[in-house]
């Protein structure tokens, strides 16, 4: 067992007492120490808290207490989920120094499962971005090529996995923030069905789209983590009161015979890198070999998904981010006794928010304004309904839908930061799933021939049928592994200390 092992293997080694949770955490801290100055996946390390937690798991194990399957395995937590007493910034200057007084439900569940939270990972400010360049604390670098982006907004979580700084991570996905980083770092990420995982304690960007989810290096690890964090939460009114599908069993099944897999016609062609399409098609061919049936489906309204998303998400964000006013938490600028509350709020928001956040607040404020509401927000909601109908119709013909996760491989840091529209296009294949509230997974399907960088394969499932993603993902992962002969991350250039 090494830090390159899967979380499942680590859990087994812990269960066999070959290694203690404290040792495992320390090994990961050593790796973080060695590589994170280059990768910058973490914003904050909670070494004391993590080691104390690891120690308590070890004690329980020694005492023979029954532990959860992942007890003692380390995890990297996206800095958009609040953890009691641990700084939570959302990648924003606005929240610098804020220590939340409560735990997100996901964090409570992680703690209950004995999963050791190493620290908080970097992200685009308030989860707005596709490259992690919008973090107020500097970008995260893709372990495959440090001059490239690790995706976003959850670039820190994905990079931490790819750089073996943690075997498990939590991300959040509003328009692709789990899946696109997974795609460009050759890791696995799942956006569960909306309502499948509690949003309580997830600092909201766009309430009707946000969803926390599991990230790991293998489909089974992702399923194990999914199982640990999912389930009804009375503190989240939009949480679904329904049994969590057995995603772990599905990930282990590795049998897709007779399964109908739909390829979405609209998620290919113009804008998609050649190597991305090739790897995607090769993966589809593997699924055919495994006995799956391929059907082509058409989702004509996907064309409008990006436009609808960039009205709904900014609208909700303009309201969600109103609370950052310096009155009760976070930074406060200009409170020198000479200014009124409104002025202090203005100054704080001017300084505290970055450009992309301001852009979206302004966009959303405009879209919700009286006289424009119907044309913008109202129309976007109608498009959302049409996209849901497209999915409904598609799922009448097949069990899951597939597409490339992102249209391109990882681009260079700085390449698109002055062109927001080009940046937004990165999420063109992931956004429809969020608008419809469905499940989406990204898993690696190879390296594009042009640049030798990872390509992500997206699997989309109907609502609360998350197990289907794991069924297909587990089977495809096994087939590709035997084709490649070794895990895809072994093809990555070696980082210092990552042996």
């Amino acid at each position, binding site marked *: 067992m090494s830090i390159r092992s899967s979380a499942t293997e680590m859990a087994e080694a812990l269960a066999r007492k070959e290694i203690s949770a404290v040792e495992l955490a320390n090994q990961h801290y050593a790796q973080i120490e060695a590589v994170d100055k280059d990768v910058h996946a973490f914003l904050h390390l909670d070494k004391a808290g993590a080691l104390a937690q690891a120690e308590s798991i070890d004690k329980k194990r020694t005492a023979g207490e029954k532990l959860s399957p992942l007890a003692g395995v380390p995890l990297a937590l996206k800095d958009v989920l609040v953890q009691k007493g641990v700084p939570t910034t959302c990648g924003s200057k606005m929240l610098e120094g804020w220590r*939340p*007084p*409560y735990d997100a439900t996901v964090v409570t569940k992680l703690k209950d499962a004995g999963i050791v939270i190493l620290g908080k990972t970097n992200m685009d400010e308030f989860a707005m971005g596709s490259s992690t360049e919008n973090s107020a604390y500097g970008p995260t670098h893709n372990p495959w090529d440090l001059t490239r982006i690790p995706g976003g907004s959850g670039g820190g979580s994905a990079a931490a996995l790819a750089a073996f700084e943690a075997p498990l991570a939590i991300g959040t996905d509003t328009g692709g923030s789990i899946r696109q980083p997974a795609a460009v770092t050759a890791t696995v990420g799942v956006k569960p069905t909306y309502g499948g995982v509690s949003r*309580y304690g997830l600092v909201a960007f766009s*309430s009707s789209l946000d969803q926390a989810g599991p990230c790991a290096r293998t489909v089974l690890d992702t399923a194990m983590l999914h199982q640990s964090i999912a389930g009804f939460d009375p503190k989240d009114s939009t949480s679904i009161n329904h049994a969590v599908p057995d995603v772990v069993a599905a990930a282990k099944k590795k049998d897709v015979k007779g399964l109908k897999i739909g390829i979405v016609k609209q998620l290919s062609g113009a804008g998609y890198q050649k190597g991305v399409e090739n790897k995607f098609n090769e993966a589809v061919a593997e699924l055919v070999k495994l006995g799956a049936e391929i059907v082509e489906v058409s989702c004509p309204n996907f064309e409008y998904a990006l436009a609808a998303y960039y009205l709904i998400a900014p609208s909700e964000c303009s309201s969600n981010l109103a609370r950052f*006013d310096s009155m009760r938490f976070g930074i406060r600028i200009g409170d020198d006794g000479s200014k009124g*509350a409104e002025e202090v709020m203005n100054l704080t928001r001017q300084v505290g928010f970055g450009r992309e956040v301001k852009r979206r607040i302004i966009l959303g404020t405009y879209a919700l304004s009286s006289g424009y509401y119907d044309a913008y927000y109202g129309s976007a909601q109608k498009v959302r309904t049409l996209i849901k109908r497209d999915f409904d119709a598609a799922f009448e013909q097949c069990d899951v839908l597939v597409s490339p996760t992102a249209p391109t491989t990882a681009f260079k840091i700085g390449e698109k930061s002055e062109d927001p529209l080009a940046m937004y296009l990165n999420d063109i294949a992931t956004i429809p799933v969020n608008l419809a509230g469905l499940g989406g997974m990204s898993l690696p399907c190879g390296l594009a021939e042009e640049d030798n960088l990872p390509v992500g394969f997206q699997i989309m499932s109907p609502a609360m049928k998350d197990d289907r993603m794991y069924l297909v993902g587990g089977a495809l992962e096994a087939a590709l592994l035997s084709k490649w002969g070794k895990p895809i991350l072994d093809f990555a250039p070696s980082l210092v200390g990552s042996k």
Partner: protein
Amino acid sequence: MSLNYDQAIQKYEPTLGLEVHVELNTKSKMFCGCATEFGAEPNTQTCPVCLGLPGALPVVNQTAIESSILIGLALNCSIAPFSRFARKNYFYPDMPKNFQTSQYDEPICVNGYLDVEIETDEGNKVFRIDIERVHMEEDTGKSLHVGGSTGRIHGAEYSLLDYNRAGIPLVEIVTKIVPNTGKYAPQVARAYVAALRDILRGLKVSDVKMEQGSLRCDVNLSLAPSGSGELGTRSETKNVNSLRSVETAVSGEILRQANRLQSGEKIVQETRHFLEESGQTRPGRSKEQAEDYRYFPEPDLVPVVPDNKWIEELRKSLPEKPADRRKRLQSEWSVPEKEMTAMVNAELLDTVEETVKLGADPTKARSWWLGEISRIANERDVVATELISVTAVAQIINLINQGELTDKLARQVVDGVIAGEGTPAEVISKRGLKVVSDDGALMKAIEDAIAAQPDTAERVRSGNIPAAGALIGAVMKATGGQADAAKVRELLLKHLGQ
């Protein structure tokens, strides 16, 4: 020459609109589990949700929904099978999320009415007030501006924020326009708020204490030339916090607007603040610069879809309507209309009913509460029921009926109870207030009185009965007021051969 009220009302026809905010008395807040008790230490009843901390999410209080439905049913509304919360976006330091979660275009109850009765020159008359909607929302926190002379934000040195009130459930009850009230607009407005308050009290969904702000009224008023059938520009007077103020605010606005119109000026659509001390209003912000609240459906909450069976159960559980109850009590107690009105106006109908339930007779219960006790309460500027308990009053009345106390002694017992000397029995024993009913002792006093006033006694003997008053007075004085005057009179007259 400015118009007086009668002239104003002759020239212009007022149209009313009333918005009443009611704080529900649920144990916990609208969207979190925090306590709602009034008067707690600042910021002790808060949590991540009502402080609007990042990541916190609301969950709707089911009791608040139940209360809202009850209110809707009592006001003859239809209950919406599907209603939603929206976000009303604006920045203010006492609003934690900088948006208020409120129902907007999809309220829980719509289209009801409330009939109110007022006295007019042609006798009592019923006005039907149509209700447009009943919707749920959350209250804001409170700002306290320190320093500066006005207590307002301008000129303050600093401000303190208390979020205990943030998230307390509110129900807003909005009427449709109320036309054709003519000169009775102030009385109709007052009667409506009073009737609403009685209904809410009967439903036990709110404390309805106007002075604590658990019931607040906004008065909309416009004038149009009489007979024109038009609708004028309205003003909205905020936070009118007593029944009397509702009446004053309406009559004051009628006068103000009439005189503006009379002098050729226009009415500005604006929000005005009611000043309790003067009964006047002063302008607030103009609606022309009104904020755009950018309402949109609250994505953190699911729609409210009440089960039909539940609604019917709630309908069956509704208490007797205040107007019906009043009619029933009037007939049970055989009291004149005027006395019923007096009890309702004094807000003592419940108290009198409770006293009667404890065995007191209705007439005495009414006269004690509205007479002696109210008089003392008025002197001390307190509420009658805070002075003395219903139980004590009922006990005193029962003692009078049993001949143990005279009215005069009873007044002393009331004084003693109010002074904190204990229960009526304790006051009676401590003060030695017992009716002298021993015939021997009374006869002795009577004979003493006759001996002292032989001439008067002679006049009574010769048939001048009213002259006995002086002798009875002497006997009462001699017994320290503890004798039953009727009994003294009976014994005296008998003794003098009458």
